[in-house]
């Protein structure tokens, strides 16, 4: 049996690409930000910053 943490041994997690990582242009689209919304801001504040770190799934189809 292996533990969930050992899945990190998969050679898949990357260091972030440098800005301008695509040699032909910007690394992110030049899109505008969403407008202000109190409810949206409240939801953003409720996000657990560790949730993705803890999130492990089995492969599906």
């Amino acid at each position, binding site marked *: 049996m292996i533990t969930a943490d050992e*899945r990190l041994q998969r050679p898949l997690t990357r260091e*972030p690409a440098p800005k301008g990582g695509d040699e032909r242009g910007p690394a992110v689209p030049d899109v505008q930000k969403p407008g202000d*919304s109190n409810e949206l801001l409240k*939801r953003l504040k409720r996000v657990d910053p560790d949730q993705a770190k803890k*999130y*492990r*799934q089995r492969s*599906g189809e």
Partner: protein
Amino acid sequence: MISFVTGLETEYGCSVEGRGANTQIDDAQALVRSLPGECRVIWDYRVESPRQDLRGFRADRLEVDPVDAAFDEGKHYGPSEEVRADQILANGARFYNDHGHPEYATPECRSLDDLLAHDRAGEAIVLQAARAYAESTGRQTTIYKNNTDYHGASYGFHESYLVPRDWGFERLYAALTPLLVARIIVCGAGKAVAESGRPCDYQISQRADFFSERASVDTLYRRPIFNTRDEPHSNPADWVRLHVIAGDANMMPSCTWRKVGLIRLGLALMAVDAVPNIALADPVRAIQAVSRDMTRRFEIAVEDRIMTTAYEVLNAYLDAGERHLAGDAEFGRLIVDVREILESLPDRPDRIAGRVDWIAKRQLLQTVVDETGLRWGSSELLAYDLEYHNVDPNEGLYFALRDAGMVKDAIPTDLDIPAPRDTRARARGLATRYPELERASWGTLVFRLDGELREVTLDPERDYSHVSPELDVDDFIRAIRTS
């Protein structure tokens, strides 16, 4: 015109407090069984054939993810049908535990409006089961409609289309592979990391990293762009169930509509022998390059060492649709919609952020980066990416965008919508009312009457709308046999 009866299967991500991937199969089994109402595990596995290949052979075995295989070493789960916990719902859908993921397979739908309604109903049904599971176990449970855990495990969103058997693998592959690659630019779900290949801050598709083959029968590992599973769930002499695994699970119904509509467009062009002649040099490389291309040039190599773009590929299909499918209202709307997306995408993607998941989420994450100082690629930023896909309307960031009016989404959340009236799903859904129903699958119903089994085959192309919900079981069987 052939209607290309369509269904969608979504394997949901599931986060259970204090649990992990090594207990995921047990947790998903319990979650599915938690759905309120009677749990009748009567799925008929006799007709399942996931190793049969559309190219005319049967694979000896299917590839499995070695990491997942290690989870299962020394573990005994009990009978497969108990673990999978298949339920047939009154709306004709199938809800079960697939490799540790709660999976909702919509009933077969003829219209895209029905399909979107049932896809949204699936979100609500899985969430209802999760809430019941959380209440009974005391474990906080969150459901995500996405395709990755950001650590190399992917789970699927599949589309099924009923197509004539005599079209064959070669024609289907040639007609649809360019679409499977190019359509991600108008319906990708977006992802703030790369899990294989060239690193990037953000990419268009959740699934692109997980394809390594052009075509194969596998779905769990070494996944192909074009899946050749030949499991028709109907008369194999007449029909193929085209099994598409190369799409993302979308939060925006408009993206689901566009994603399915484009494949239906390709199939309709096949029916009139008007498919554009485009052969990609390397579909796997192409989908991964397009997915990472934040310049939005979306160049793709075609055979003969010529370059094209995803724009040109999609426009070729739209042009052919205008020429050969004029008069079809649904394709007319689709063509207008996709052209609008393609026109805004190069220079003004902000104009279409409310219509395309990957752009809306990209904007949202940029806001988080600007406001918090988080860096692209950090696990903290991935948490925001993940929460975009939370299906709880009171918690998910997608639904926050919708409620703020930033996303166009008018599909209601309705747990109790009936099965589509004009497909065999209606017969299956109505059949769940009868205690005499002993087994069921997509294509068959088996009843036990007076100690004897009576099997009824359901026709995938037939309209069952006239079958009354008020019949006794004998009359019901007679009606679905003769309708």
